[in-house]
């Protein structure tokens, strides 16, 4: 157990999980004093029939005020204002966000406007500006990865000024996260695999980086165990509802862990790679995770070693000599990536050079790496990484990850 000199831990969101968790929504809203929820979602989620499953599960016991299914992939102020208008027009009194991070961020923004009776979202940006309870908001995640259902943050784009606005307040945390296995049952294999690896990375970075604490540690270890046990099963048997629910729970656990303990260089480089080359976040995480662990090994190898227990079991941990445990963990993650690559018939990239964009062209040309580095140097996620990285260090990591070679540890410069 590692007790930092100071830490905070909390997760205000209520978790309701099950194979028919959606059916609990009417009574949950009733307990929160709401009668007429507005459903917020995006075209993809609606098109996949998930909103129909939700409405069928609740419509007999509650009046649905409306369905707004136009949330774009990057949440924007314009969208938030439009949906807030719809909410008022249809005299709704609660929000159900069904979808991924952008849908939930939009719903959080809408909730600020309708609860504060305002049209000026910008007035509430920053940390701690929202100071009182908002209308009831339920989050129904449709992938098992981001963990955004547990966070007190919303990121919304200001189109006119071309920048992203951050909003943070304990009152932005949804009242509940409703995890229902039906929401992820039909996720395509590549999305299942890469979103699960995003959750895996949240858990592993929370456990191995500098802002760890003993509470997020336990949640992180439980998340790693659930993912390593259930992801291969779900890849082999996509209709495995138990496994789907386990992955959803794992993503939420991992979200709670990194929400309190932050992330490290894998997210830092991943954000840059996503921004510069458009590589999906989960794929970035999967490809970069082994490199993050290798790069930090001289600082946190003893923590990486602990991950052998949830990945391989206590017996394997006991049988493996202590100095070999971290390497075994890194090796197992590479093997997991390899097996996911095969299960997805090659469409799950293992190395940067393998990533293809929608047109089939290489998404990360080798000469794009310096631009990725410059973006990474501007990204705050590096703050809690155990070892520092300068321009050359980033290039070292990225070139290895591009080729798919394990990191040559003799080339890593060891900071104090």
């Amino acid at each position, binding site marked *: 157990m590692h*007790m*930092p000199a100071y830490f905070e831990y*909390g997760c205000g969101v209520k978790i309701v*999980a099950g194979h028919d968790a959606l059916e609990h929504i009417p009574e949950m809203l009733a307990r929160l004093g709401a009668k007429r929820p507005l459903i917020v979602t995006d075209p993809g989620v609606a098109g996949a029939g998930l909103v129909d499953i939700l409405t069928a599960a609740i419509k007999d016991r509650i009046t649905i005020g409306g369905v707004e299914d136009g949330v774009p992939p990057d949440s924007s102020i314009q969208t938030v204002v439009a949906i807030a208008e719809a909410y008022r027009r249809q005299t709704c009194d609660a929000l159900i966000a069904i979808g991924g991070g952008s849908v939930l961020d939009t719903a959080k923004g809408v909730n600020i406007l309708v609860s504060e009776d305002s049209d000026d979202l910008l007035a509430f940006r920053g940390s701690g500006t929202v100071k009182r309870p908002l209308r009831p908001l339920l989050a129904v995640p449709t992938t098992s990865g981001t963990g955004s259902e547990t966070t007190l943050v919303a990121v919304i784009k200001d189109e006119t000024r071309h920048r992203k606005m951050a909003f943070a307040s304990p009152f932005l945390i949804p009242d*509940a996260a409703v995890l229902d296995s039906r929401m992820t049952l039909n996720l395509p294999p590549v999305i299942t695999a890469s979103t699960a690896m995003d959750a895996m990375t949240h858990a592993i970075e929370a456990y191995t980086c500098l802002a760890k604490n003993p509470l997020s540690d336990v*949640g992180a*270890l439980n998340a790693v165990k659930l993912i390593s046990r259930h992801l291969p099963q779900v890849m082999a048997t996509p209709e495995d509802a138990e496994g789907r629910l386990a992955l959803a729970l794992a993503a939420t656990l991992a979200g709670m862990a990194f929400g309190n303990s932050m992330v490290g260089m894998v997210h830092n480089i991943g954000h840059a790679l996503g921004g510069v080359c458009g590589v999906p976040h989960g794929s970035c995480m999967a490809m970069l995770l082994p490199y993050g662990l290798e790069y930090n090994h001289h600082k946190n190898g003893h923590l990486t070693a602990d991950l052998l227990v949830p990945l391989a079991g206590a017996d394997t941990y006991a049988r493996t000599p202590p100095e070999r445990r971290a390497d075994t963990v890194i090796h197992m993650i590479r093997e997991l990536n390899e097996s996911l690559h095969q299960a997805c018939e090659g469409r799950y990239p293992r190395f940067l050079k393998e990533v293809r964009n929608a047109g089939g062209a290489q998404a990360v040309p080798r000469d794009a790496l310096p631009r990725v580095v410059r973006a990474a140097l501007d990204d705050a996620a590096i703050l809690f990484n155990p070892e520092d990285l300068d321009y050359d260090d980033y290039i070292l990591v990225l070139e290895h990850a591009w080729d798919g070679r394990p990191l040559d540890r003799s080339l890593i410069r060891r900071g104090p």
Partner: protein
Amino acid sequence: MQLPDQLEFSCPVKLLYGRRALEHLPYEFGARNVRRPLLLSDEDAVRENRMRALTDALRASEIELGAVEPPAQGIDLDLVHELAAIYRDRDHDALLVMGGGALMDLAKLVNIVVSTGQDDPAGFGASNGIAQRLKPMALIAPAAASGGEASGHVKADRIELQSIHLMPDLAVIDERTVGAPDQKAVLNAGLTALAFGVEAMLGAKRNPMVDIYAANAVQMAMAALQSAAEMPVALTTRMLTASATVMAGCILAGKAPGKLHRLGTCLAATGRLSFSEALGVLLPAAVTLEAHKHGRVPARLLSALMGLERSSGTPVGQRSLLAATALMSLLNDLYRLTEGRLPRNLRDAGFEPDDLAAVCAAFDETAGDGDQDAAMVMLQQALDGKPNQSGC
């Protein structure tokens, strides 16, 4: 871990732990729109300089603290109403509690009255009758805690209530307010937290969310109890004890107490040992019994009890024996440390075989859920503190 088909979990408590934790209160208050908290503190707060630490931490902020020091003995409705009147008259907007046990119960009752306008908290019924959010409440947690402070339970003056809304929004554990070294308090609080944690990791209702608090209750309490011999009790030991009891409260939350907890209450009602001591002597038996029922003891419980390095090589079939043994040797150590004042088993507390049936009958009355047989097995095993591999 076997995942339940249905899972519901929530814990509204935010923990602020460690050096200068109090200095983070103004930010947390500000984010909740709290400007004028009413402080309830115990009689030693001034003498022990805890009050000074708090006012220092709030000095540079816009927080205006109003303070009362309720009488140490006995909570009655008159006192609750008196404090509620002060809260309203002085325009307070939150409750801040520095201290543990009955003081927190008092604060919870005051909060019900000021938040709902209902003068009689008992009117909400025993279980989950409170439907609304209450006023913000913050606990500055001491090492000398009962374990119920951060929970949604309140028990005072014939009133017994459970609700998730009674849990504090914040639990602050700061080196300057964790309380003076008191070995007995650390032992009691540590044993209670240990028992809450062990029970939550063994039960059929175990889930990966509760596990976060349960595993930490166990490992923090074990670390605290194992270093409680040091005199005066070290600061880190007191910090660990305080956080272990906050974990215990988060485990209990607004739920009905489990079997071990209820049996401990019945044993304590005999007056021969305290609630914490009762939980302690029952613990090894609870582990063997639950392991027998569910087939195994979770690896995570074993590593929380004795560390990953020592526990990881243990075959599944030996885990329950090892866990029970670790708990028994802890009890033996504490018995030696307290020169026999802390019982290792029920005989140490003066029980004879003939006394057990009455305790068992009292237990059955509290629950009436047919767990009487299990209770008897636990009591018999706790009588001499011998491990019982058969379970029955």
